C-alpha cells in the first residue's frame, strides 16, 4: 500500500564539488521552495577537552567582526537581509563536532528588490569565521571572550530550570562518562573558567588552517553560479590564512568522514543513579547499548524497533505505559544513530517509579519476544517511511539527511532509505531488539509540592 517507490524513479543524489583543497560544496538544486538553505560547517574531532572550547569560540566569532564590530551591527545587517534566520551549528555526530553557521535564505524571485542575498549571507559567514573582532595584539577580543564565558556559565546553570532537560543532561553525562568524546559540548563551570582569549585564538587559527570546510546548499541558485560565488568569496580568506586555493577534489573530504567511537564500558549489572530536584514531576531514563549505527546492515531494523517501542502513534510505550496505566503524559524512546544506543524517557509522579520502571522494561521485553500486533508493526513502518518522505519537503531536512550520510560515507537517497525499511521483517526487529542491553537507569526525583495551578481559584 502507499506510493510505489519502485515506479517513482530515483531522485538525483546531491552533487559535491571540490572548490579548493579541503573545501567542498554540496548542492541539491531545487525550485520547489521559497526559502533555500546554506550551511558552512567545519568538522573537528570531538574531544572532551576541546569541545567546550570550540563552543565558546563559535559564540565569540558570532559576537562581532572587523566590519560589524558589535552584535548589534551584525544583527542589523541580517535584518536588512530579510531577517535571514541564522544559526550557529554545533553538533556532535559520528565522532565529530561540527562547528559553523547555517542560514535560511529567501529565494531571489520572492525578493521585492534585486539583491544577491546568497552572496551577502556567504559574505557574513566568511566575515565571522575569518575576520572576528580582535584586540590590537591580534588576540580574539578579550572583552567578548569574558562576556561569552559568563553567558556559557549562565546557560549551564539554567539547565536546572527545566527538569526534563536537566535529567537528560545528567543521564547523558553519566552514560557517556567512559567516552573521551564526552557529551556535553559546553563543558563544566570549572573548565569554562580556565579558558583564555589567547588559548581561544590559538584554537581559532588552528581551525582555519586545518579543518575541512563543508558547504551545503539546497535551493534555486544555479550550481555553477554558486561554485563561482563560493570561490570568489572564500578564495581570498583562505589564502590569507595560508591555505591552498588551487582546484580541489570532488566528493566529501575524507578528513571529515565519521570516526569510530569508543566502545561502551560495560558496568557490572545495571548502573543506577538517583538525584533530586525541586520540581513537580519526576523523570525516569533508561539507557541501552545496542551497537547498531547508521550504515550497518541492521540499521533499518533498529530504526523500526525504536519506532515500535516509543515513537509511532501506537507505540508499545504509548499504548501500555501511558494509555493503559495512565502513568505519564510523555513516554518516548530515542535512537542515537551515530552511537548505536537507545534511550527511553518518562515523566512520572515520584510515587509511580516502581510501576513505571516495570512497565517500561516489560515493553522492551515484549519487543524482544515479538509481542507487538500487526497493526503496531504496520503503523511503525508507515510512520517511519512517512517521516523520511517528509525530508524532501524541507531544504533544511534535505541538508541534514545527506550531510549525515556523506559523513558516514553513504551514497543513499531518501527513497533508498524508505525501500530499506520495507525489506525489514518482524524477525529482524526481534533479533535486533535482543541486542538492546540495559546499561543504566537514572531517576530524577521531583521534590516540589503541588504547583500553583492546584491553588488557582475558579471563575
Amino acid at each position: 500500500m502507499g506510493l510505489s517507490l519502485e515506479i517513482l524513479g530515483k531522485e538525483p543524489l546531491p552533487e559535491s564539488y571540490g572548490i579548493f583543497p579541503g573545501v567542498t560544496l554540496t548542492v541539491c538544486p531545487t525550485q520547489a521552495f521559497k526559502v533555500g538553505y546554506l550551511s558552512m560547517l567545519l568538522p573537528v574531532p570531538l574531544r572532551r577537552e576541546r569541545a567546550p572550547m570550540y563552543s565558546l569560540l563559535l559564540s565569540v566569532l558570532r559576537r562581532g567582526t572587523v566590519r560589524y564590530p558589535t552584535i548589534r551591527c551584525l544583527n542589523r545587517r541580517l535584518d536588512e537581509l530579510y531577517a535571514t534566520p541564522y544559526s550557529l551549528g554545533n553538533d556532535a555526530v559520528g565522532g565529530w563536532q561540527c562547528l559553523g553557521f547555517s542560514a535560511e535564505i529567501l529565494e531571489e524571485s520572492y525578493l521585492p528588490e534585486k539583491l544577491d542575498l546568497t552572496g551577502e549571507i556567504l559574505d557574513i559567514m566568511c566575515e565571522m569565521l575569518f575576520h572576528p573582532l580582535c584586540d590590537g595584539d591580534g588576540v580574539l577580543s578579550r572583552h567578548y571572550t569574558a562576556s561569552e564565558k559568563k553567558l556559557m556559565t549562565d546557560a549551564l546553570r539554567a539547565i536546572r530550570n527545566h527538569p526534563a532537560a536537566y535529567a537528560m543532561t545528567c543521564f547523558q553525562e553519566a552514560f557517556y562518562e567512559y567516552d573521551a568524546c564526552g557529551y556535553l559540548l559546553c563543558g563544566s563551570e570549572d573548565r569554562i573558567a580556565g579558558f583564555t582569549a589567547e588559548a581561544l585564538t590559538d584554537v581559532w587559527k588552528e581551525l582555519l588552517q586545518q579543518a575541512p570546510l563543508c558547504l551545503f546548499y539546497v535551493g534555486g541558485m544555479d550550481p555553477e553560479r554558486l561554485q563561482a560565488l563560493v570561490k570568489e568569496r572564500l578564495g581570498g580568506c583562505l589564502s590569507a590564512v595560508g591555505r591552498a586555493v588551487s582546484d580541489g577534489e570532488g566528493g566529501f573530504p575524507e578528513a571529515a568522514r565519521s570516526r569510530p567511537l569508543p566502545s561502551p564500558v560495560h558496568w557490572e549489572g545495571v548502573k543506577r543513579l538517583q538525584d533530586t530536584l525541586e520540581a513537580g514531576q519526576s523523570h525516569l531514563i533508561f539507557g541501552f547499548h545496542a551497537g547498531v549505527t547508521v550504515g550497518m546492515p541492521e540499521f533499518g531494523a533498529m530504526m523500526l524497533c525504536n519506532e515500535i517501542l516509543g515513537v509511532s502513534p501506537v507505540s508499545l510505550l504509548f499504548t501500555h505505559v501511558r494509555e493503559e496505566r495512565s502513568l505519564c503524559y510523555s513516554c518516548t524512546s530515542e535512537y542515537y544513530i551515530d552511537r548505536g544506543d537507545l534511550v527511553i524517557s518518562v515523566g512520572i509522579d515520584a510515587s509511580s517509579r516502581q510501576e513505571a520502571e516495570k512497565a517500561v522494561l516489560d515493553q522492551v521485553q515484549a519487543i524482544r519476544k515479538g509481542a507487538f500486533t500487526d497493526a503496531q508493526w504496520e503503523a511503525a513502518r508507515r510512520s517511519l517511511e512517512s517521516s523520511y518522505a517528509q525530508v524532501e519537503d524541507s531544504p533544511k531536512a534535505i541538508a541534514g539527511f545527506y550531510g549525515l550520510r556523506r559523513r558516514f560515507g553513504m551514497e543513499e537517497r531518501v527513497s533508498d532509505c524508505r525501500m530499506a525499511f520495507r525489506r525489514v521483517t518482524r524477525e529482524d526487529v526481534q533479533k535486533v531488539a535482543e541486542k538492546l542491553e540495559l546499561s543504566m537507569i537514572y531517576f530524577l526525583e521531583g521534590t516540589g509540592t503541588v504547583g500553583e495551578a492546584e491553588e488557582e481559584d475558579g471563575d
Partner: protein
Amino acid sequence: MSDGLDREKKERDAVRCVTSELLRERYWEFHHRSGLRVQVFPKKRHSCTAMFTVQFGAKDLAYRTAEGNEVRVPQGTAHFLEHKLFTLPDGSDVSERFASLGADANAWTDWDQTSYLFTTTEPPAQALRTLLTFVTHPYFTEQTIEKEQGIIAQEIRAEEDNPWERLYRQTMRALYARHPIRYPICGTPSSIRTLTPEILYACHAAFYRPENMTLTVCGDITWEEVARIADEALTDWGKNSAGMAGVIRRRYPETRPPKEKRVVGRAPVAKPLFSLTVKDAGVPQDAVGRLRREVVMGVISEALFSRAGSFYNDLFESGHVTPNYSYGYSVTPEIGYHAVSGETDDPDTVNRAYLSFLEKVRTEGMSPDDFERYRRVLYAGFVSGFDDPEEIADLMVEAQGGGYPLFERLRILQDITLEEGNRLLREVMDPEWTVLSILQSDPPVSGND
C-alpha cells in the same frame, strides 16, 4: 457537469478561489452543505495536512442549554474534551486508525480554538474521512474520563515545571482581572476531577456544530476531492441540532489599568526571569482592523525590541540580559498586549531601562529606516511560511479564527505608513499601563506598587 453534480454544487455557497500573485499561491474556500466552512490549499508536496478546527477553547467556560439557561463548566474542559475525543467506542484510540492509514494524528487546544489534525505522505482521502468522523462522533464514559485524569495531571505537572509557562500565567493574572486567559489551558488537577461525561457531551453538542467549525486541507489535493469526502463523511451532521445546547460568546470587559503593576513569584530558577508587558485596551472589533493593528504592532515590536535595537543591546552589553530573550505582540478579539521577556540578575534595573526607553521612543518615534527594515523582516517571515503544508494550514486556521483573508497580511504590510506606526506606538506603548512580572528563586517579595 451532470445535473446531480450541478445540484450539489449549487447546494454549497459559491466556491471562491483566492490568489496571491506575489506568493504565486492560491486556495479555494466554500461552505459545505452542512454549514461547515472548508478551505483547500493545493500544494505539491509529499505531505498533506488537514485540520478540523472548532471555535471552542480554554476561554469558553459556559454553554447555553436548549432551554436557554447558562451552565458553567470547569477550567480545562475544552482541552480535556480534545483528549477524550480520541477514544473510540470500542475503547481503542483513533490514533491507531490514523497510523494504519500512514497518518500521524494530533490535536491542540488554545484560548479560542481546538484543532484536530493529521499529516500523511500517503493518499489522504481515508484519513480525512476518519478525521471528520471521529471529531463529530463523541464517546465519553466515566471510566475513560477517570483514566485520562491521570495523564492530564502529568501534563499539568510538566507545564508547572516550565518556569516560562509559570511566568506567562503569573503575568496574565496581573494583566487581566476577568478574562480566562488568567487560567491554565489544561485546567488544574482539581478542576479536571469534576468533569463528567454529561459535561463533555453538552459542550460537544453546544460547540462542535458545523457553523462553528472549519476544515482546512493543504497538500497535493483538489477542492473537489475534499468536497466529495466531506459529503460522504458528514451525511447527517448538523441536521438535528435544532433545540440543542448552544454557544455562549461571553465577553470579559477589561479596563486599561492592569490588575497589578508588579508581581513576584517563586520558582527554582538559576537566574530571575522577567516579563515587561503593556496592556492594549484599544483592540478594534472588526477583523481586518485588528489584523492591521497586529501587523503595525509587529513592525513596532521589531523596531523597538529586536536584537538589532538599542534596548536589547544596551542591556546585553552591560550584562543585564542574556540571549534568552523574546518579545512580541499578541491580539485576539478581546485582548491585546505586548511583552518583552528574558533572564536578568536585576529585574528592577531592566524595568527602569524599559520605562525610560518607552518615554524616549514615544517622543522621538521610529526612524524611516527602522520602519522599512522591519517591514521587510515581517514580509520575509510571512513568505517563508508558505513552503510547508502544516505551516500553511496553521496560517489558514489562524486567519480563519481571526476572521480575515489569508493574504490580507501582505496587502496591509505594503499599505502601512510610518505615521501610522508612530501613532500606534504612542497609543499602545504607554508606560502607564505596564506590568513587571518576576519569577525568582528567592522567597517572594511582597510589594505590589
